[in-house]
């Protein structure tokens, strides 16, 4: 039997019931956005992830609409590999530290984690999120154990990364990333943060604001308009081998409201460390 278009269309309805994937990644790219990239995703932005699994960008994503998110994650246990690509909201920021941001997706968020259970372990890695009028990465419902790594988050207008306090995300790890020239803060994390090998540079206000019991290690805080690190709760914060330079108008480089666990090796280049 020669597979005809009619036959193919009929089989397309039946055959998926018998298929089981043993691996592989769902693809996201600018071309598939126009039609929906996979089941559960409708045409246009945001790309909506509704099932667990591995997702990979195979092109940059440019969000043209002024109010759309780029990617909404509505499923648990998602690995989002940006694969070296950029999710671009189109905006730009001026000044170092940033004084203003304009243009682009004014109301949109780059990656919006909207998963809805304590099993929402989300991993986002290996790419750039920039130029969004809202937050670059919003971890609203990120679960315990969420990981961000090998990212550049830059020139976003409502914080580079923001993890609000909620019932799901009690620990978040961020490593090997650049949080650069966002407005106002580089990263605000209300859960317990583990930040390692990151650079916070040129953000309008605070480089890193943490309110949980956090560990900040081997990171660099430079030219942020406010404090390099601001731990604003009564929880303890550990600082280990970090570099602080030209933050807060060369005044106090960090402010730890709770107990400071100074693990040693912290250096303040132009102002005595607190």
């Amino acid at each position, binding site marked *: 039997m*020669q597979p*005809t278009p009619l036959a193919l269309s009929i089989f397309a309805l039946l055959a998926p019931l018998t298929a089981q994937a043993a691996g592989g990644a769902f693809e996201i790219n600018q071309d598939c956005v*126009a039609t929906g990239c996979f089941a559960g995703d409708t045409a246009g932005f945001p790309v909506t992830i509704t099932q667990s699994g591995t997702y990979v960008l*195979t092109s940059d994503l440019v969000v043209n609409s002024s109010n759309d998110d780029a990617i909404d994650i509505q499923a648990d246990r998602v690995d989002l590999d940006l694969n070296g690509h950029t999710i671009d909201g189109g905006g730009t920021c001026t000044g170092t530290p940033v004084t203003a941001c304009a243009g682009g997706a004014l109301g949109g968020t780059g990656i919006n984690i909207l998963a809805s259970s304590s099993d929402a372990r989300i991993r986002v890695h290996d790419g750039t999120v920039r130029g969004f009028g809202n937050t670059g990465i919003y971890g609203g419902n990120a679960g315990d154990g969420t990981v961000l790594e090998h990212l550049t988050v830059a020139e976003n207008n409502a914080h580079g990364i923001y993890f609000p306090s909620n019932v799901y995300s009690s620990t978040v790890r961020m490593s090997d990333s650049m949080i650069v020239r966002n407005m106002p803060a580089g990263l605000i994390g209300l859960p317990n943060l583990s930040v390692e090998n990151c650079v916070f540079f040129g953000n309008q206000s605070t480089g890193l604001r943490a309110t949980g019991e956090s560990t900040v290690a081997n990171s660099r805080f430079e030219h942020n308009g406010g404090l390099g690190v601001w731990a604003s709760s009564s929880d303890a914060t550990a600082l280990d081998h970090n570099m602080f330079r030209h933050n807060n108008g060369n005044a106090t480089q960090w402010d730890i409201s709770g107990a400071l666990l100074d693990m040693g090796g912290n250096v303040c280049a132009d102002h005595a460390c607190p």
Partner: protein
Amino acid sequence: MLRKILLFAAPILAPQPGVAAAPAIAGLGYAADTGANLIDANTFVARKDFVLDALGSGRFRVTIPGLPDTAILRDFHIQNDAHGDYLFALDVGVTLSGTYFAPADVVRFNGSDFTKEFDAAAAGVPPGVHCDGVARWGDTGKLLLSFDRTFTVAGKTIRPADVIVFSGGAFGKKLLDAHALGLPANLNVDAVDTFRTKDYLLVSFDTGGKIAGITFTAADILQLHLTTGAWSKRYTMLGFSDRWSHANLDGLLAINNDTIFQDDFE
């Protein structure tokens, strides 16, 4: 479906210089490792799909039913027989109709059932090796395969740029012997076809490179004359769509004019 497209095939894109002796090609099938608008500016082709291109008379997306959205079609072939079955390999293991197919297997789809055309484990292909080239030698000839890693089976070393016959349950002659031809060791054939001849191979590699003075990209289609060992560039896919600037051609099928007359007018 393929027959229908070929009947409409009229204008034929001019081949690259230096391939005048080879049969004209009336229809191409191709797949990419990146989902992209390969049909036109607005028609998306996923990584598990392929395109049938009548070379000036229309392009059609073909979705093999039942494949998961996470699969990438590594290469495919359409049997030139009464059934027109599809043969293909995937980048991931998948269970179809209750049968598990490993990434080194070749799957046959007859319009309703999936069966194993090439059982990699039974043939001695070690785990971790993936099949990335599937074709027939000649019109309905022996199975031709290519793999993504070097391995040895029954004393025969098969390299990523080799194209080898599989027949009677064993690997046979190499139609493309990468080592003997002095191809760079880093090259990997990831798409192959004979356009239903016994004399020519069409191949694409998973990276750009240079062979016999011919510089090519991962999306270009090269032709090898099996008798003389002469290489030429048969198609530059960037001329088909600008999306090929970022996509790697990893599935290939070609139909020559002689076959059309043989099929439809004799």
